[in-house]
C-alpha cells in the first residue's frame, strides 16, 4: 500500500515535470502517434476488405465452380451439368416447387473510374429469377429491375459510386452493344454492390455464351452442405468444386489480406523499433535531466523499485497518449473511407476502411509495449545510480 502510494506520487511528480521538457517528450508522443496511426490505418483497410467479403454470402448457400478454378471468372458450367446440380436432393425448393438454383454468368466490362478517369474492370453478372429469390438482401433502391429479353442492366450502389455514367437513365456501351441502366441496387454492403447485373438469358445470347460461370444453390439447411458437396464431387458426370458461399468470398480476399498483413508486420516492426528508440531517447534524457531529483528522492529513502516503476509508468503514459492520438487520428481520417481494389478476379471491389474497437485496442497494446521497453532501460539506469555520485552532479 505504502509502496503503491509512493509509486503513484512519483509518477505524478514525473508527469508534472513533463511541461518543462516538452521538446524531448514530444518525440515519444509524436513517434507513437505516427506508428499507431499508420499501423491502424493499414489494418483497418484489411479489416474493411475482409468485412465486405465476409458479409457476402449466406451459410445457407453454396457455390459450384468448375473443378480447379479458384474464381467464378475462370469457371465454366455447362447447361447439362447445371441440370444435374439442380437435381441434387440437398437443394431447397422454391414456392413454385422449382429448385432454388441459379446458374450465373460473370463477364468483365471496362468502364472509366470516376476517381482517375482511366478504364477499370467492372464485373457484370447474369442472374435469373432464382438468383433474386435466393438473395433477399438484394434490394432495388432506385428505378426498377431489368426485364428479361431487353438490353437492360441494374447497377450496384458501389459500382455507381466508382464508375462514370452508370446512373439510372443512362445508356452504356458494353462489349459492342448498347445497354440501358434501369435501376440501382444494394446488397447489404457486400461485394455484389460493386457489380452490374443483367438478365442471365439476355446475357447468354448477347455475349454468345452457352452455359454458366457458376451455380449458386440454396441448401435445404446449412447442415446439408456436406451431403450436397459429396453428392456432386463423387458424381462421374461432373467435375466441380463446391464451396460454401461465405468461404468462397472470404477466399477472394485472402491474397489481399496476406499482402496487408505482411505490410503491417514489416512497417510495424520498422516503425515500432524507431518508436522504441524515440522512447528510449526521451526517457534517457528525462532520467538525465532528473539525475539530482532522483538521487535526492533516493537519499530521502525512496526505494529503487519505486523509481524504476515510476519511470516505466511515465514512459507508458506518454506512449499511451501517443497511441491514443494515433488511433483516434486513424479513426477520424480513415474510418468509413471508401476505396476500391482489384479483387482476385481482377475486378474492382469497393470497401470501406474499418477502424474497429479491436484495432484501437491493438494500437494501445502496441504503444504500451513500446512505452514499457522504452522506459525499462532508462529506469534501470536511474535505479542503479550511485546516490552519492549523482548528488555531486548538482
Amino acid at each position: 500500500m505504502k509502496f503503491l502510494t509512493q509509486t503513484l506520487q512519483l509518477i505524478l511528480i514525473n508527469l508534472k515535470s513533463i511541461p518543462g521538457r516538452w521538446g524531448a517528450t514530444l518525440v515519444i508522443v509524436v513517434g507513437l502517434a505516427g506508428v499507431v496511426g499508420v499501423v491502424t490505418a493499414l489494418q483497418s483497410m484489411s479489416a474493411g476488405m475482409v468485412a465486405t467479403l465476409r458479409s457476402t454470402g449466406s451459410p445457407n448457400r453454396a457455390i459450384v465452380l468448375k473443378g480447379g478454378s479458384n474464381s467464378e471468372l475462370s469457371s465454366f458450367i455447362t447447361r447439362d451439368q447445371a441440370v444435374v446440380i439442380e437435381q441434387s436432393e440437398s437443394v431447397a425448393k422454391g414456392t413454385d416447387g422449382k429448385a432454388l438454383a441459379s446458374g450465373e454468368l460473370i463477364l468483365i466490362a471496362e468502364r472509366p473510374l470516376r476517381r482517375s478517369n482511366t478504364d477499370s474492370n467492372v464485373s457484370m453478372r447474369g442472374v435469373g429469377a432464382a438468383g433474386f429469390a435466393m438473395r433477399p438482401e438484394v434490394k432495388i433502391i432506385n428505378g426498377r429491375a431489368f426485364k428479361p429479353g431487353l438490353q437492360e442492366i441494374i447497377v450496384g450502389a458501389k459500382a455507381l459510386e466508382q464508375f462514370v455514367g452508370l446512373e439510372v437513365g443512362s445508356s452504356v456501351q458494353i462489349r459492342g452493344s448498347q445497354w440501358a441502366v434501369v435501376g440501382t441496387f444494394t446488397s447489404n454492403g457486400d461485394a455484389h454492390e460493386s457489380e452490374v447485373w443483367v438478365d442471365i438469358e439476355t446475357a447468354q445470347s448477347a455475349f454468345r455464351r452457352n452455359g454458366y460461370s457458376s451455380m449458386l444453390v440454396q441448401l435445404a439447411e446449412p447442415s446439408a452442405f456436406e451431403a450436397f458437396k459429396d453428392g456432386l464431387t463423387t458424381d462421374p458426370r461432373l467435375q466441380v468444386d463446391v464451396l460454401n458461399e461465405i468461404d468462397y468470398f472470404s477466399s477472394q480476399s485472402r491474397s489481399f489480406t496476406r499482402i496487408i498483413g505482411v505490410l503491417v508486420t514489416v512497417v510495424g516492426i520498422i516503425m515500432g523499433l524507431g518508436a522504441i528508440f524515440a522512447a528510449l531517447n526521451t526517457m534517457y534524457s528525462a532520467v538525465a535531466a532528473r539525475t539530482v531529483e532522483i538521487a535526492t528522492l533516493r537519499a530521502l529513502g525512496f526505494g529503487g523499485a519505486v523509481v524504476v516503476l515510476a519511470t516505466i509508468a511515465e514512459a507508458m503514459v506518454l506512449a499511451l497518449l501517443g497511441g491514443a492520438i494515433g488511433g483516434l487520428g486513424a479513426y477520424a481520417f480513415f474510418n468509413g473511407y471508401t476505396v476500391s481494389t482489384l479483387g482476385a478476379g481482377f475486378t474492382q471491389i469497393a470497401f470501406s476502411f474499418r477502424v474497429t474497437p479491436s484495432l484501437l485496442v491493438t494500437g494501445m497494446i502496441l504503444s504500451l509495449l513500446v512505452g514499457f521497453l522504452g522506459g525499462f532501460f532508462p529506469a534501470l539506469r536511474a535505479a542503479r545510480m550511485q546516490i552519492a555520485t549523482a548528488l555531486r552532479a548538482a
Partner: protein
Amino acid sequence: MTTALVSIRGVSKRYTRGKQTVEVLSHLDLDIASGDFLALMGPSGSGKTTLLNLIGGLDQPSGGEIRVNDQRIDTLSSGALARWRARHVGFVFQFYNLLPVLSAEANVELPLLLTDLSKAQRKKNVAAALAVVGLSDRATHKPNELSGGQQQRVAIARALVGDPTLLVCDEPTGDLDRKTADEVLTLLQDLNRNYGKTIIMVTHDAKAAEFATHRLQMDKGALVAGEAA
C-alpha cells in the same frame, strides 16, 4: 562509557579509478554525542562530503565500523539502508535539492510518504515543520517562487518533518549571502538548542562554524584538529 550517538571506528573509504586506488578517508575514528551541533571544516577535497555521506548512510565505507544509535549501518543492504535513512536522517544540501514541480508543502511532505502516517497527520506535520522554519505563509509556493534562503528553509523543514535522529547538512549556506546564511544558521542553532536536534554540518565558512557547538578540521582524509565531544 560515553554513549555517543554516532560512533566511527577505523573507517576508510577508497575509490578505484582504473588501476589507481585513491584513499579518501583513512582509519578515521570519531564520536558524536547526541545533541551536538558539529561543524566539519577543511580544504576542498579533504573528504568532508565523503565522511558526511557515510554518516548519513548515502554511501558505505571500504573498511571500519559506523554505528548510529548503537546500530551498525555499514553492514546494511542498500534497501535496508534506504529504510534506515528514511527513519533516521534528515538531509540538507548546498543547492537545496527541492523538486521544482512541487509546492513547498509537497516537498516537505515527501519523507512522510515513506511512513504510515495518514494524510491528515502528514498535513499536520508538514504545517508544523513549515512553522518551525517560519514559512507557513509560503506553503503553496513553488521553489522558483522562493528566494535561496527560503528554499533552504523549506529544505530544512523537509529534513525535520520526519523527526530524524540526525540532521546532516553539506554546506547549507554555501550558496547564500552573509545575511541569509546567518538566518539559516540561526535556524539550525535554534533546532539544536531548543529542539535537541543533533546536527552535523560541513562548511568552508569559519563564521558559519561559529554557530556550531563543536568544530573539527579535516585534511587529506584525516581529522587534524578541533574539539570533538
